[in-house]
């Protein structure tokens, strides 16, 4: 499959997964008041509903990486390594700040932080090969 076709297929799957994510968020927020955790164990699967499309997004990213050419894989490795390292460093550092009374950092922000850093890493490492 051509590189451009791989990207088009990935983007199509990504857009569908994002639409599914928005629907899942709306559905979960609609259903959760009827199934509070103290009354129903259904609160747990309902609140995790948006994770299903996120799994599809991750699956798409893995497929994209597997089908990318060798330079793209190298750039992605550098960007993902940068994102993973920086996310670990930032959250670990903030853990020490929490010990001295800084506000608690919700774990839900770890993935968005990693995605933003991945984007920064991609832009930086991609420029090195242009």
């Amino acid at each position, binding site marked *: 499959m*051509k*590189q451009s076709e791989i990207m088009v297929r990935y983007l199509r799957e990504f857009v569908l997964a994002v639409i599914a994510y928005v629907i899942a968020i709306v559905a979960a927020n609609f259903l959760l008041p009827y199934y509070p955790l103290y009354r129903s164990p259904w609160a747990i699967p309902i609140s995790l509903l948006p994770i299903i499309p996120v799994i599809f997004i991750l699956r798409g990213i893995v497929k994209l990486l597997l089908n*990318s*050419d*060798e*330079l*793209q894989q*190298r750039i992605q490795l550098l960007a993902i390594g940068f994102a993973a390292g920086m996310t670990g460093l930032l959250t670990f550092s903030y853990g020490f700040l929490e010990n001295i009374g800084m506000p608690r950092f919700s774990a839900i922000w770890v993935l968005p932080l990693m995605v933003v850093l991945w984007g920064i890493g991609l832009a930086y490492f*991609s420029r*090195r*090969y*242009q």
Partner: protein
Amino acid sequence: MNNCLKVLRAERDWSQAALAERLNVSRQTVNAIETGKYDPSLPLAFKIARLFERQIEDIFIPDSNLEKV
């Protein structure tokens, strides 16, 4: 590593995008190889050599300090 990929491509009047399509890589990869910013793997170098009907060493020229090794 230096290479004469740009010359070979120009001889055939191919754009970077056209060459990228023939090699099944991205245009950025072709550009990075041409400008010496990226050295291709051995399989990709063979693919390039086959496409231009040359030997690998006719297309890719090692840096002078490597020649002494």
